[in-house]
C-alpha cells in the first residue's frame, strides 16, 4: 500500500490560515490501513485544528468527512453538494487525493495534510517499510524475491557494494543491506550461481524516468 506521514500541525495551520470554514477529508484506502488518513485520523486532526483555532479566539469551524477513496472520481463526487461551502479542504489521502479533489472542484483551495512517503507494507503494527519503487518492470524473482531497486540505497543491480558491513548498508546501521540478504537467500535456496549473471543496464523507460505514466485498459474503458 501507499504509506504516508502526517504533516506537522504548524504547517497545516499555516496553510489554512485566514480560511474560515475548513473540511478535513479522509480516505478509506491505503492511508486508513497505515493509520494516517482514515476516519480516526480525520477526527484527531480536526480536533487539533479546532483546539488551535479556539486558542487563538478564531471560529473553530473545522468539519470532518471520510470517503471511500480519493483516487476514484465516483467517490470524489460525493463532495459535489458541499465542496464549495468550504474555504479550505485538507486532504489526508496520499498525494493523489488533493489532486483529484482540486481537479474536480477547481475553485476550492485544497491542501495536503500528509506527506506521501513510499510504497511498502507493515512488518509489525506501527512499523512500515519500503518495498517497491514502481520501476514498471518487476524483477524480484531474480533476486530471491527481494527488490534491489527499491531496497538498495544505490539501486545496484549487481551488488553488494563495498560499503556493506555486518549485514547493514553504508548509509546507516539501521538500514539492512538488501544485497547481503539477497546473497544469503539465494545461497539458502541453492541458487547462488544465478547471481553470476551480469545484469545489463536497466531500461528506466517504464519508470518515472520515462515521464508521467498512464495505463489504459481498453477492455475496461467505457
Amino acid at each position, binding site marked *: 500500500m501507499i504509506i504516508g506521514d502526517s504533516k*506537522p*500541525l*504548524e504547517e497545516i495551520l499555516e496553510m489554512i490560515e485566514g480560511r474560515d470554514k475548513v473540511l478535513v477529508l479522509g480516505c478509506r484506502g491505503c492511508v486508513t490501513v497505515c493509520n494516517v488518513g482514515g476516519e*480516526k485520523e480525520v*477526527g*484527531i486532526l480536526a*480536533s*487539533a485544528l*479546532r*483546539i*488551535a483555532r*479556539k*486558542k487563538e*479566539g478564531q471560529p*473553530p469551524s473545522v468539519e470532518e468527512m471520510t470517503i471511500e477513496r480519493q483516487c476514484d472520481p465516483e467517490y470524489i463526487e460525493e463532495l459535489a453538494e458541499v465542496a464549495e461551502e468550504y474555504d479550505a479542504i485538507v486532504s489526508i489521502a496520499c498525494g493523489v487525493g488533493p489532486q483529484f479533489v482540486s481537479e474536480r472542484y477547481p475553485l476550492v483551495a485544497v491542501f495536503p495534510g500528509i506527506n506521501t512517503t513510499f510504497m511498502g507494507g507493515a512488518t509489525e503494527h506501527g512499523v512500515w517499510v519500503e518495498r517497491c519503487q514502481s520501476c514498471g518492470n518487476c524483477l524480484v524473482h531474480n533476486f530471491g524475491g527481494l527488490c534491489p531497486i527499491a531496497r538498495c540505497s544505490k539501486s545496484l543491480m549487481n551488488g553488494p557494494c563495498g560499503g556493506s558491513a555486518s549485514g547493514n548498508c553504508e548509509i546507516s546501521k539501521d538500514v539492512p543491506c538488501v544485497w547481503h540478504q539477497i546473497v544469503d537467500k539465494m545461497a539458502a535456496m541453492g541458487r547462488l550461481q544465478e547471481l553470476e549473471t551480469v545484469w545489463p543496464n536497466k531500461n528506466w523507460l517504464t519508470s518515472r524516468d520515462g515521464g508521467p505514466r498512464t495505463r489504459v485498459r481498453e477492455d475496461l474503458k467505457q
Partner: protein
Amino acid sequence: MRLQYPTNVRVIQLPCSGRVDILHLLRAFEDGADGVYVAGCMEGDCHFLTGNLKAARKVEYVKTVLSELGIEPERMEMFNMSSAEGPRFAEVAQEFTQAIKELGPSPVPAAQAA
C-alpha cells in the same frame, strides 16, 4: 473510605486505561479542560497485559500534539496506581489539580454551552 479529592476532577470510567483514545483526550482539551490525566493500573499489573502501557503511549502522543499547538504538554499526564490504593487516587487528584492551577487556565476557552 470516604476520601476527599478536588471537585473539579471529572472522572470518566473505562474498563481499562488501554481503552482510552487519543481522540477522547483531545476532545477534552477541545472542550476547554485545563488538564487531563489518565489513571491506569501499575505497570506489569494490567489485567489485559499491556493496556496501561498502550495508554501511556497515547498520552505521549497527545503531549506532542499539545506542544505543536503551543499548549503546555504538562496539562496531559499518565499516572499508575493500584485500584486498591484509594488514598493514592485522592493524592494524585490533588497533586495534578495543584499542578494545573499553577499553570493557570488552558488557552482554549471552555465550550460556551457548558
